[in-house]
């Protein structure tokens, strides 16, 4: 706890709030690369700050971060394994029809949705 006790948690929180503001304001420029960097890039930075300074993952035995990374790798394996079914339009003994891309409009799309905001 000695190292933890020197951490200024309020400063970390303030930094997280500033990053939140940037992640909301950045995409308003409507430039794709800025949106990706500010919305998603900053999400990784915020997650890192929370994991390091709030969860103190760097102070746990080394196998804990390895365990977390292993879980992430398994999750990525799931994504990579199923991605072809989502992205490819045809494969062995299967082919997607036009219906696959069709998204039925929600009732609000027929009127009233504009009032939402």
């Amino acid at each position: 706890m000695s190292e933890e006790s020197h951490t200024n948690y309020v400063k970390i929180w303030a930094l997280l709030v500033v990053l939140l503001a940037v992640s909301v304001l950045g995409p308003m420029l409507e430039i794709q690369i800025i949106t990706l960097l500010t919305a998603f890039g900053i999400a990784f930075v915020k997650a890192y700050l929370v994991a390091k300074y709030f969860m103190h993952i760097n102070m746990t035995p080394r196998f804990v971060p390895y365990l977390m990374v292993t879980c992430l790798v398994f999750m990525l394996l799931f994504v990579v394994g199923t991605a072809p079914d989502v992205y490819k339009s045809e494969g062995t003994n299967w082919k997607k029809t036009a219906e696959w891309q069709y998204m039925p409009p929600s009732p609000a799309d027929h009127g009233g949705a504009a009032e939402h905001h």
Partner: protein
Amino acid sequence: MKPIATTRSTSGMPTGLLAIWWVVGSEIVIFGGLLGSYIMYRLSHDAWANQAANTNTALGTLNTFVLLTSSLFAVLAHRAAESGDGKKAARLLYYTIGGAVTFVCVKAFEWSTEIAHGYTITSNTFWSFYYTAAGIHALHVIAGAIIMAIVARDAAKNMELQRVELIGIYWHFVDIVWIFLFPLLYIAK
């Protein structure tokens, strides 16, 4: 006399701490799979962007702020528990629970507005993902708040103070999940 599992430390860390990290590890796979599926479908369906344009960014931002602030209270509660101040730890945990209640209230208002406008879980695949991902996350928030109330009750009597850190780690993970859900559901339009 404490149960053996509470005091045992065969892995170089208290068993309770090891257990909560196992919980976090399994939650990574649950939420990771959900978010991974969302990203894949979002990128392969142009129509999803139009649907995502109907989520309320202001309320999503407010809820992100609420969760970040509640995480601050949780880590301050951990610090208080480490210094043996159970009463202060309990008070800070109650502030964290306040954040959880605020989050759920904002979410309830947001969902009721969206449902009133016709965006329901059966509207189309985007809204199915939206309600499923945000709903599972909200259930974690509610569960965390309930467990935190039990931990705070004991902490106020200076009992089981090690649990303050454990519920804190869970809470910060719930915060991290929202940190990724927020740009996916509210920002990328």
